[in-house]
């Protein structure tokens, strides 16, 4: 064991009550940081999860049609009438799809056609969104199979998977037939193979998932798709990626972040309040460590004087105290990590939903512990700087005389 560490550990051991106190202080600080992070991360993850349960991370679609005036003289009076928008296919979408699949950061791409329609069974009818998809691609964007409440995830020929709420309103069960009519009068019948609950009322009430081909026929877009849906690795980098994709393809790219701007604002203000709290916890812990170490420097000034008289250099004395700070941070992060994790678990077990899942989802991962430990150790080191300077600046001649 090197000299500085040896002396630092002995000084800490000698401190007993003081050392216990700063260990406790640092541990509680780390515990609060871990608990708070676990809670807020969990909460945010579950919010984002719920939101993205029925949404792609990025949507690509053809740009809106715009009228180009033929006269562009400044003297002429021109009124541009915005044309009515119709469903448009993405030009050469197969090529775009392959391009997307090769783009780093994109994990899945799913083509789809979507349009308005009417679903009817007997005398009941409901306004719906017809979505023609390739099931094996679509399930990688939105995990329908795990959210089925009845039937199975199968879209072959004239089969459809619909929302639970729509099924209830139309009185449809798995195995029934549903008639879908689009705005321009095309109609087709589908066998309902499954019912899903994607967690969003709107979606459960309106979505009718059909095979891509059937969708194309119904919406009069044979061979075409209206949107490409993307899943990406970096959830919060989705907007930046969307902008890049838009530039490269000339298509309109929208990320979940623009489509859910309010949620994002809420998440951000949550995060900033959490950083604020953590900042003040760190300050409080740092002040605690620093003040205890300063007291210990005063108490040990005689010993520091002897060390220096014996030939210990100023940087060595400095390191003895910096190491004490770091050790406090390290012990604090170990004990605090355990305390924080225990607290989070306990809290999660207190409030549970009827199905046994926690009301307050918590998210504890290794990264959180590593970050908290790093923060604690750096805080310990930094709080030891002032005491260490004070110790290393002691004049041995003076200290030994005065003792």
């Amino acid at each position: 064991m090197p000299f500085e560490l040896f002396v630092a550990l002995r000084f800490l051991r000698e401190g007993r009550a003081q050392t216990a106190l700063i260990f406790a202080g640092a541990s509680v600080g780390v515990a609060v940081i871990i608990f708070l992070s676990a809670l807020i991360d969990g909460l945010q993850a579950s919010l984002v999860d719920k939101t993205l349960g029925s949404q792609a991370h990025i949507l690509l679609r053809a740009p809106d049609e715009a009228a180009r005036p033929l006269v562009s003289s400044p003297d002429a009076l021109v009124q541009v009438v915005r044309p009515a928008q119709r469903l448009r296919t993405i030009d050469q979408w197969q090529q775009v799809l392959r391009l997307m699949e090769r783009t780093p950061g994109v994990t899945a791409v799913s083509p789809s056609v979507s349009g308005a329609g009417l679903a009817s069974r007997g005398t009941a009818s409901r306004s719906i969104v017809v979505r023609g998809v390739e099931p094996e691609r679509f399930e990688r964007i939105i995990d329908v199979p795990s959210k089925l409440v009845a039937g199975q995830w199968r879209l072959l020929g004239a089969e459809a998977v619909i929302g639970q709420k729509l099924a209830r309103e139309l009185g449809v069960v798995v195995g029934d037939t549903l008639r879908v009519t689009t705005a321009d009068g095309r109609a087709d019948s589908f066998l309902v193979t499954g019912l899903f609950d994607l967690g969003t009322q709107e979606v459960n009430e309106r979505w009718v998932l059909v095979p891509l081909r059937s969708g194309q026929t119904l919406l009069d877009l044979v061979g075409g798709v209206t949107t490409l849906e993307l899943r990406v690795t970096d959830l919060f980098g989705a907007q930046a990626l969307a902008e890049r994709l838009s530039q490269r393809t000339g298509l309109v790219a929208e990320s979940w972040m623009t489509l859910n701007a309010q949620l994002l604002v809420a998440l951000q203000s949550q995060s900033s309040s959490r950083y604020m709290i953590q900042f003040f916890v760190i300050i409080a812990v740092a002040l605690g460590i620093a003040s205890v170490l300063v007291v210990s420097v005063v108490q040990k000034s005689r010993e520091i004087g002897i060390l220096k008289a014996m030939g210990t250099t100023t940087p060595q004395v400095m390191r003895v105290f910096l190491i004490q700070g770091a050790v406090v941070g390290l012990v604090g992060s170990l004990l605090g990590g355990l305390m924080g994790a225990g607290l989070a678990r306990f809290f999660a077990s207190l409030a549970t939903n009827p199905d046994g899942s926690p009301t307050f989802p918590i998210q504890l991962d290794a990264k959180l512990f590593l970050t908290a430990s790093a923060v604690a150790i750096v805080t310990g080191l930094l709080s030891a700087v002032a005491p260490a300077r004070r110790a290393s600046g002691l004049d041995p001649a003076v200290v030994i005389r005065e003792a």
Partner: protein
Amino acid sequence: MKPEPVLRLVGVTKEYGEEVVTRVLHDIDLTLEQGEFAALIGPSGSGKSTLLNIIGLLDRPTSGQVLLQGQDTRGLDEDALARLRARTLGFIFQFHHLMPAFTALENVMMPALAERGWPDERMRTRALELLAQVGLKERAGAYPRQMSGGQQQRVAIARALTMSPALVLADEPTGNLDTGTSAQVFELLRHINREQRMTFLIVTHDPRLAQQCDRIIEVVDGRIVSDRREPRRSG
């Protein structure tokens, strides 16, 4: 060729204060040869502590030179002085000044540990030898609070010898001990001096102790007023 003296002071002056200058030491010249066993005496306030601090490289003279084994210490920075201190000087203080958090053995090892950074077996063996020399081998694992004043001072002596210093500076080494223990501790210093030809400079108030040294240097009002060599007694 005559070997370099262990210590040579040339025209050492020390002043304190900026506006009102107090001169504590006046133009001191002093030489200690290897193997000397000298006492530094003088009334309190005479400047002998300041002189000891300057010799111990804990303080710098306002003017003049301090040469340790021929090496000029002017112009060395704090850390160079610390290293030189570690290699050439041993300190024994009045209030023994052991580090309470460390055992006797660890206290004795401390100067070597500070200098080399990592402990090794040689260091340990040397420390145990020194403890044996001061008669405390079996107390190696004891903490200072578990030892008597005399034992603590003997550990402090062993610690001062760890780096085989050229010069041992002892500030009232027996000032804190009763007469019997005091005599024992003094005898130990004397013994080491004779056995190892190690040079000692002992600051003391006690005239009887000073009388037993080979040389008595007396400081009054910042000047050396007398410097007499006693005929060396046999054993």
